[in-house]
């Protein structure tokens, strides 16, 4: 295994990221139910069901998985300590799982007080996490491209959350604002291109060669892409603040995203091993969707379609695929470590591939692929497509829960066997 640059002894217990991963599909389920119950509302970005679903997916699902993954990855990738992980991860987990549905309910019922409580809870989850993660990362000497990208992503995420709090204050009439749509667009651009885009790209620099033995992304791209995205986001914000047309910055962001997706697809085609792996297909679909969304943005496509493709294509499909690799891998590694601490081969640990059945990932991928065109049609205001999208999202969430819970049950039962055997010997 290519573990260069990794500090595996720093890896936290698997329960830390798992609590985030297991809770995430619940928010996808809630979003699916909301869409299925309000299928005609997808035609407007301002409809309560759309605002609620977008925040459930973006915060409850996507951000939850990203924070869970960072709790696992940061100590391993950078060797930094995030303190007592079991304790430090509890507040973000609780606050995010309370805050995201609370925000969803606030949007849905037009209850801005509930929205403010939800937003405060999300901020309570996210801001302390950003501080405990970002400061040790900033102190680290000679950072890798991945670490540098994660720094940028966390810094932009801080802005996204502050912007979100500002927008909640505007909706509650606590602050005045004459350009609400412009501010919402900036909030969404920062979240999608900055938080999601920068993080997904930086992590793929490290995980793609690690998991699929593909070789590296070109060094000029690893060196320049993160800083380019950050600079373009700053340029876009400046142009917006000066009330100038930000399309030059938006178009350059689209081109950078297109370049990343092409390089990503090319790299995945260079796998040393050619056997079909569903995770590779998830990543390829994700990269292709990003390419299509960026192309649409470049040629003046509907902003809502671009955002939906980016959110589902990169924010849902990519983490879904990655978790299909990560959950069995972390579970297997922890079981092996637990077993090896006993000093002998007591139990044959099930192989990583046996944690998840062979068919479910492919069915989940098919459902997610169907969801993309279905949502694109539903955004034009077609109720049947809206209903179909909601049902697809519900099916995806339920299948994901079944997969994750199944893998976790296998982990727990094997771990119990490992723990019980020495007790019997005593």
């Amino acid at each position: 295994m290519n573990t260069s640059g990794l500090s595996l002894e720093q890896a936290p217990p698997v329960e830390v990221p798992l609590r985030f991963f297991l809770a995430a599909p619940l928010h996808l389920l809630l979003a699916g139910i909301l869409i299925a119950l309000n299928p005609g509302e997808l035609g407007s970005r301002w409809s309560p069901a759309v605002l609620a679903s977008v925040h459930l997916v973006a915060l409850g699902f996507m951000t939850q998985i990203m924070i869970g993954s960072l709790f696992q990855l940061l100590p391993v990738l950078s060797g930094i300590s995030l303190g007592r992980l079991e304790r430090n991860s509890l507040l973000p987990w609780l606050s995010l799982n309370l805050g995201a549905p609370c925000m969803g309910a606030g949007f849905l019922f037009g209850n801005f007080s509930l929205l403010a409580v939800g937003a405060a809870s999300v901020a309570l989850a996210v801001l302390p996490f950003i501080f405990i993660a970002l400061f040790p990362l900033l102190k680290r000497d000679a950072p890798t491209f991945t670490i540098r990208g994660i720094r940028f992503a966390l810094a932009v995420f801080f802005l996204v959350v502050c912007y979100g709090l500002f927008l909640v204050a505007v909706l509650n009439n606590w602050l005045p604002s004459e350009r609400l749509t412009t501010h919402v667009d900036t909030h969404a651009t920062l979240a999608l291109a900055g938080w999601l885009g920068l993080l997904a790209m930086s992590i793929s620099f490290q995980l793609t060669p690690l998991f699929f033995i593909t070789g590296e992304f070109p060094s000029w791209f690893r060196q320049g892409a993160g800083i380019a995205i950050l600079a373009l986001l700053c340029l876009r914000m400046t142009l917006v603040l000066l009330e100038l047309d930000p399309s030059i910055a938006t178009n350059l962001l689209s081109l950078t995203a297109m370049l990343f997706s092409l390089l990503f697809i090319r790299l995945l085609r260079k796998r040393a091993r050619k056997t079909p792996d569903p995770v590779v297909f998830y990543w390829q679909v994700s990269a292709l969707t990003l390419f299509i969304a960026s192309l649409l943005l470049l040629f003046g496509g509907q902003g809502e379609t671009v955002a939906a493709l980016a959110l589902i294509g990169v924010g849902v499909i990519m983490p879904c695929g990655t978790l299909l690799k990560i959950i069995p891998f972390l579970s297997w590694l922890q079981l092996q470590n637990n077993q090896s601490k006993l000093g002998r081969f007591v139990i044959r640990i099930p192989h990583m591939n046996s944690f998840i059945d062979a068919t479910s990932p492919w069915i989940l991928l098919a459902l997610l692929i169907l969801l993309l065109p279905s949502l694109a049609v539903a955004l034009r205001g077609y109720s049947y497509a809206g209903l179909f999208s909601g049902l697809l999202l519900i099916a995806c969430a339920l299948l994901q829960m079944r997969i994750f819970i199944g893998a976790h049950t296998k982990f727990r039962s094997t771990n119990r066997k490992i723990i019980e055997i020495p007790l019997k010997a005593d």
Partner: protein
Amino acid sequence: MERIIDVSKLEPPEPLERILDSLAEMAPGDWLKVLHHREPYPLYGMLRNMGYCWSTIPGEVTSIEILIWPEEQEAPPGAELF
């Protein structure tokens, strides 16, 4: 007797799985030669815990070779001891 496995083209954690499977099946007196493309760092801690010694040397077919043997056994030929 020497047992050889080539894990250089496998994706993680298959190299580790194959190595641990092979160790579990090793008869007394055997040692394992692993052909790999990178140093499998997570393996080393496990080997230490389970009472194995190892030696990582430059490979002939792949970039590195790892020789693994039980600590109560003598080091196999070619092993570099530190």
